[in-house]
């Protein structure tokens, strides 16, 4: 199949929205576009399986290469492996469900209808950035799409957000821009240390992966790239944009932020930092492990003290994304597979969590746990989904979170040193703390006596909300019950990364 479609159709959808009039047209167009994107991503998955089962063992499939700017050797080079396919699937899910939950625009925006065009455009445009990022095989193109995905977030939060939205929007934009700047330094550093046959430099990921970048260069630029992407992926101590950003964002933007944007970071750490600089990855692995362990446990403890539902989910995202970085830092095939699984799982789960919180907020106009209670009685559907996603977050078997965490634990435990064992145990310990804060939230908001008489008049989810929640729930359960398909999808990609790393070990 032609991989350009994965970029083209979202772009066309976003463009088409600009020509619409009124909320009704806008959302029909966005919805149709998002559905096509989801179908396309499944077609891509199918095509990928077909290619693989017909014996195509190339690292990347459906490659397309077009010279974009010859003097700097920038190519529009795209292609996918299993990891990218998984991320594209995730993105398509989030885009569609994000459109669905915004069906009536964020509830609290007064001039909601007027700016619907801009809102949906930005949302879809964010999707374009993510799709482009995940299919890029050229560092500059990759960076280009990363930047595309930052700007819409600033506007989405700043205009349609709630609470101290200007502060949060600015904070998020500054920190992510800072991250991008670090990434750019790292990429430029890599570029000038590549040497192709004709004596020039290259941005091409495939070519760089075949070269051996001098260890000193790797050691110098790895931190730039890793920390830069790490900021996107909530690397401790650069995670502080997460709570504020998510909490102020409108529901769909929170879903995009946590579901897609944070995954850009994890994917970048994996695809660029670890894949292209394996020596440095080995050398710095212990620092990554320590930082992610801190994020996991400390994030969980910080979550325990939150009182706002969105803050709870945002802080728990810090903890859960710590697992992604832990898996990457552990540098075993199983752990890396687990990290990707955790990205997908966390993306679906946290988007669903934010969707539920948004639905609750739209109705009760509060996110404070102290003022909520007994919602199961008045909105059984939303509450049930809330409980399911909460259970997924605490790692209940049969749902996606368990699969990802277990894979990471197993992968981490493959190392023999005491350091790895202790850090794994620390990460494992978070399952207890997670249970504490999750059950606290469920017990307070969903169960218990009805907090206020007015709540008894509230209505349950509408069709669009049910569809969104249903889709994400199916995703969570599909991974949770049958993880082997995701494992088989991601496995070869993780293998390729591991090959680079083990080559280093053998070379020594």
């Amino acid at each position, binding site marked *: 199949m032609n991989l350009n479609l994965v970029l083209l159709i979202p772009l066309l959808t976003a463009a088409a929205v600009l020509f619409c009039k009124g909320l009704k047209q806008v959302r029909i167009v966005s919805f149709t576009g998002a559905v096509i994107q989801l179908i396309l991503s499944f077609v891509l998955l199918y095509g990928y399986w077909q290619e693989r089962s017909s014996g195509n063992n190339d690292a990347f499939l459906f490659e397309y290469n077009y010279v974009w700017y010859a003097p700097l050797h920038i190519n529009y080079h795209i292609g996918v492996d299993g990891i990218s396919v998984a991320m594209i699937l995730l993105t398509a899910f989030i885009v569609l469900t994000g459109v669905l939950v915004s069906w009536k625009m964020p509830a609290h925006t007064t001039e909601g209808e007027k700016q619907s065009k801009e809102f949906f455009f930005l949302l879809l445009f964010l999707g374009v950035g993510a799709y482009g990022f995940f299919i890029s095989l050229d560092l500059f193109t990759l960076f280009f799409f990363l930047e595309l995905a930052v700007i819409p977030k600033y506007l989405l939060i700043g205009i349609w957000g709630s609470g101290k939205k200007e502060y949060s929007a600015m*904070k998020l934009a*500054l*920190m992510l821009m800072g991250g991008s700047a670090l990434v750019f330094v790292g990429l430029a550093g890599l570029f000038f240390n590549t040497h192709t046959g004709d004596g020039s430099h290259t941005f091409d990921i495939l070519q760089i992966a075949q070269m051996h970048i001098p260890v000193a260069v790797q050691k110098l630029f790895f931190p730039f790239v890793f920390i830069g992407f790490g900021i996107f992926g909530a690397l*401790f*101590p*650069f*995670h*502080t*944009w997460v709570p504020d950003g998510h909490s102020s964002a409108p529901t769909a933007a929170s879903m995009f932020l946590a579901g897609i944007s944070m995954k850009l970071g994890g994917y970048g750490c994996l695809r660029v930092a670890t894949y292209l600089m394996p020596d440095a990855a080995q050398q710095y692995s212990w620092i990554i492990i320590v930082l992610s362990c801190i994020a996991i446990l*400390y994030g969980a*403890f*910080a979550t*325990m*003290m*939150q009182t706002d539902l969105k803050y709870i989910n945002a802080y728990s995202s810090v903890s859960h994304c710590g697992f992604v970085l832990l898996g990457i830092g552990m540098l*075993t*095939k*199983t752990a890396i*597979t687990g990290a990707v699984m955790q990205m997908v799982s966390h993306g679906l789960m946290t988007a669903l969590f934010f969707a539920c919180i948004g639905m609750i907020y739209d109705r009760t106009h509060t996110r404070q746990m102290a003022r909520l209670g*007994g919602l*199961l*009685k008045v909105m059984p559907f939303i509450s049930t989904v809330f409980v399911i996603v909460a*259970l997924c977050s605490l*790692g*209940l*078997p*049969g749902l996606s979170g*368990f*699969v990802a965490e*277990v*894979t990471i*634990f*197993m*992968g981490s*435990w*493959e190392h023999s040193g005491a350091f790895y064992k202790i850090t*794994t*145990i620390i990460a*494992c*310990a978070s*399952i*207890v703390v997670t*249970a*504490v804060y999750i*059950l*606290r939230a469920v*017990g307070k908001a*969903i*169960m*218990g*006596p*009805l907090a206020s008489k007015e709540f008894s008049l509230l209505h349950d989810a509408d069709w669009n909300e049910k569809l969104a929640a249903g889709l994400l729930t199916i995703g969570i359960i599909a991974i949770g019950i049958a*993880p*082997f398909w995701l*494992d088989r999808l991601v*496995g070869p990609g993780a293998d390729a990364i591991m090959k680079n790393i083990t080559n280093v070990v053998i070379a020594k």
Partner: protein
Amino acid sequence: MNYSDYIALIPLLPLAGFVLLGLFGKKYFRRSSGYIGVLILVMSTALAFYTAYQYFFVSGKVHDTYQTIIPLKYTWLQFSSGTSINMGILVDAISVMMLVIVTFVSLMVHIFSLGYMKGEERFSTYYSFLSLFTFSMLGLVMASNIFQIYFFWELVGISSYLLIGFYYDRPSAVAASKKAFIVTRFADLGFLIGILILAYEGGTLDFNTLIERLTNTQSSQYINITTASFLGISVMTWALTLVFIGGAGKSAMFPLHIWLPDAMEGPTPVSALIHAATMVVAGVYLVARLFPVYSINEAALHIVTWLGAISALLAALIACTQTDIKRVLAYSTISQIGYMMFALGAAKYGGEAGTGFTASMFHLFTHAFFKSLLFLGAGAIIHAVHSNEMKDMGSLRKFMPVTHITFLIACLAISGVPPFAGFFSKEEVLLAAFNSNKFIYSIALFTSGLTVFYMFRLYFSVFWNKQREKHEPPHGISFTMKLPLIILGAGTMFIGFIPFGKYVSSDGKLLESAFHLNFSIAPVCFALAGIAIAMWMYKTESNRPHRVAAAFGGLYQAAHKKFYMDEIYLFVTKKIIFNLVGRPAAWIDRNIVDGTMNGMAYSTAKISGWIKGIQSGKVQAYAMYFFIGIIVLVIIVLYLWK
């Protein structure tokens, strides 16, 4: 038929029930959910009994040894190191025994609930949760892979959580469900780490291979795991102890027992199923499953024995002082599971020394019957008088004859009065303890006396004593509630005669029960004495209980306050974890980590403001900077020139 043709249906039928009732119950099966649930369980139970018949009487035995058969196995998740999580079904003596217990008790509870939960608003939800639990529990007992057991272990935990919190608008139920899950989760952390160690050292997660490797003293895995040590203790002991912590949490062993009494907030039939007969014995089952490995590790086995014995004694002491009928039964459950644990700990692998293993499984089997009967009886009583407190009950024998007789049978069974079920199993447990450790035996004997006392204290206070006038006269119970009581009562009278050693033993070979009549004189005397004392104190209303309580003074107080375990836990969680860990973490994040980020942004803004001032756009200012610059440059150049 081969096992593989139908055995997967045993757990899958309840799963289908869960999905069906969970998704469509509210809309389409509001009334009929109960019947659907019962029907499904009837099918599962029939298949389970058929399996048991096939296994024990037709095809299970080869060369006089019961075999372990794995009819189904699928790879669920493959790890690069070669280990994999498999979902499979393992058929051996103890898994088949558990199949029978789980399906049968679950069926009884399904039938009982038809009457007990009648008119409940979330009737279909209740049945879907019951189905979910039954599915998870069946998956647990049939697991062929240690990660599979963990998988279902967590699922039974969550089913228990959902059912304890079934009356979700009661804050006490919500708190109890939360506590149950978190305490067992804490224990599961140990279990998980234990699994990771076993997987790493054993190179596999499948029970069969794992046990084979870790019991073969020649294998490299065995040598590695026993020679490697951490903090001076061998890795093998660590792994087994950690796994046992998981089991101790689920089975409510001291000091992880605190969730079980609170779990009584759930509907009473649920307590009968989950918190008496099935889920709480999962810890015993886990140790039994890995018994060949435990049996060659003295240290781990000691921990099992002692924790079991201590739990049996302390829980029995507490049970003597509680006034809530369900809590008495809950502590009694802890105490009886303690029996099963130390019986396992007192056993060795194979032959006569394996008596403890058979005894433990036998006691697990009989306990499932009489304890679920006691709980269902308690449910009937609570249903009739609308209270859990013993002081609101009295003289109920006049109103509830069926409940009375069946309750009495169960009390006699748990007390070990011949010829009721508990007599045979308890005798065997005591015998195993006697043969291995005299001190444990004396604890067990004393505890059995306490058991009789608190059970008959309950019996006399509820069914005799003075009738309470406060409430309207208790109403009778429906047929659907009576039927399970009668069936379980009949079971309790006869299952003790099953020659258990013939079917279940540590090595699968025939175990001739060495049963001595002389040996049972002491326990039976203890039992009769216990009944007499309870009768003297509680048969009629008097101030004797107060006098006795006063005579015991401090011990009574301590037991009444449950040895202050809840207070200790509250102190640790609220004061230490929340205030000394959680609060600082949240504070540091907002003020120090984020503060640094904000500080950087702030100083950047300051500096840029300062630089901005230079670019003022005023031509005069530029001109001045220009001249100052020239002068400075000239000075530098002149200075350097010389």
